[in-house]
């Protein structure tokens, strides 16, 4: 016994596989705890799901929107020439605002007239939208779009190119805006969750440990002041171990009677065991102590 290894192996042999029956009511508390934390986890998972579903969804809608507009532009271009001129004026007008250079503005004005250059412009712009959409439909659309459009914009060789690259941008921006909005929403949700979840200390119950159930209307009940709870159980025992009171309702107070019999409990000390779980907290807590009953 004196040498070190002997002590270590002695302990390991004897206590390494030691087993003790767990208290019988432990499982109840644990299962409550699991379901409480599982529901918390499922709400978290819910936000994750909305995130993961909505983000691609926004991308897809953006892509579909883009395709719609392209096909609309293509159809309008390839259909009869007379209505095209009118139809095309509309998108061009919006572009006038976007284009910063005065040169291009004059150019777009000229395109407003039903002339040859106007036609080539429309054609090019629609085709460029198409290429933009191809990249949009490819593997990772969301970040690519803005980038792929903008460098072209900066290195614009000619006025037509300038206009071309401008055209897809509104589409891309809307898609980006949608995505941004989405991520902001989820961020807000996460933020509020963090606030409700972790930042505050768990409130503690207040137990008034002495009372006088003499019917004088003053301090006749054993009053507990509990925070909002998801689980509650109060048991009161006499010091001999007899269960005198049990409840699972936080607002049901002991009036100093023994069980259902209605017999008055004697003056003296009683032991209470209070199990509770505060709403929004994981842990089922157990508190015990003495109550003094005076008649």
């Amino acid at each position: 016994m004196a040498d070190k290894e002997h002590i270590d192996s002695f302990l390991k042999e004897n206590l390494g596989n030691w087993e003790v029956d767990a208290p019988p009511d432990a499982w109840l508390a644990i299962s409550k705890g699991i379901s409480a934390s599982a529901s918390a986890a499922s709400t978290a998972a819910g936000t994750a799901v909305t995130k993961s579903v909505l983000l691609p969804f926004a991308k897809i809608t953006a892509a579909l929107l883009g395709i719609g507009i392209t096909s609309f532009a293509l159809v309008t271009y390839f259909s009869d020439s007379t209505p095209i001129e009118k139809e095309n004026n509309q998108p061009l007008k919006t572009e006038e605002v976007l284009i910063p250079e005065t040169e291009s503005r004059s150019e777009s004005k000229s395109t407003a007239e039903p002339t040859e250059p106007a036609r080539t412009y429309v054609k090019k712009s629609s085709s460029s939208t198409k290429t933009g959409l191809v990249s949009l439909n490819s593997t990772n659309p969301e970040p690519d779009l803005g980038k792929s459009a903008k460098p072209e914009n900066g290195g614009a060789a000619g006025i037509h190119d300038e206009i071309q690259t401008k055209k897809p941008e509104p589409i891309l921006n809307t898609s980006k805006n949608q995505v941004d909005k989405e991520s902001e929403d989820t961020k807000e949700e996460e933020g509020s969750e963090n606030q409700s979840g972790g930042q505050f200390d768990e409130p503690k119950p207040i137990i008034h440990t002495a009372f006088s159930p003499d019917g004088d209307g003053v301090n006749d009940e054993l009053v507990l002041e509990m925070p909002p709870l998801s689980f509650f159980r109060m048991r009161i025992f006499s010091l001999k171990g007899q269960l005198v009171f049990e409840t699972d309702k936080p607002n049901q107070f002991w009036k100093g009677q023994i069980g259902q019999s209605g017999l008055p409990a004697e003056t003296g000390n009683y032991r209470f065991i209070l199990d509770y779980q505060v709403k929004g907290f994981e842990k089922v807590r157990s508190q015990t102590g003495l109550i003094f009953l005076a008649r």
Partner: protein
Amino acid sequence: MNKQIDEEIVQACLRNEAKAQKALYDFFSRTMFAVCLRYCNTHEDAMDVLQEGFIKVFTRLNQFSGKGSLEGWMKRVFINTALEHYRVNKVYQEQSDVEMANDNPVDGYVLEKISQKEIFELLNQLAPGYRTVLNLYAIEGYNHAEIAEMLGISEGTSKSQLSRARSLFAQAYAKRNNIKQGGR
């Protein structure tokens, strides 16, 4: 030596099936409660840690890598839960062992039958810091570096506490045997 639980039960627990969770609890609760008792000062604390530990086990089961045994992983969860429970009180740093100071020297003698519970009680009457180090080193088999990290103490402290804990345990054991022999 470790108990093996059916893989299907573990999988069902991962799907949060209540029956499987109960089965896993029934399978391991006795072992884990013993672990809790060894690391806790009181029975009430051990019950708290048992609850907290099992809730952790079920909510973090997906983090179990599958390396090593599930039982080993669970033990670690429970040990860490228990240590966390006392971390606030800083019980591991300062020790007092006045009550053990004047004991008879330890004689070498043959180990006689002694129940696990009695050994546990001997171990449990050591000051918490000694008990914990002895538990971690002798029974769980952690090394001093690991123990130092787990308890937030230096390796030197871990070593000195271990040797002190061993001699205190040996004294307590001898004392118990002397009393028993004297009583016969």
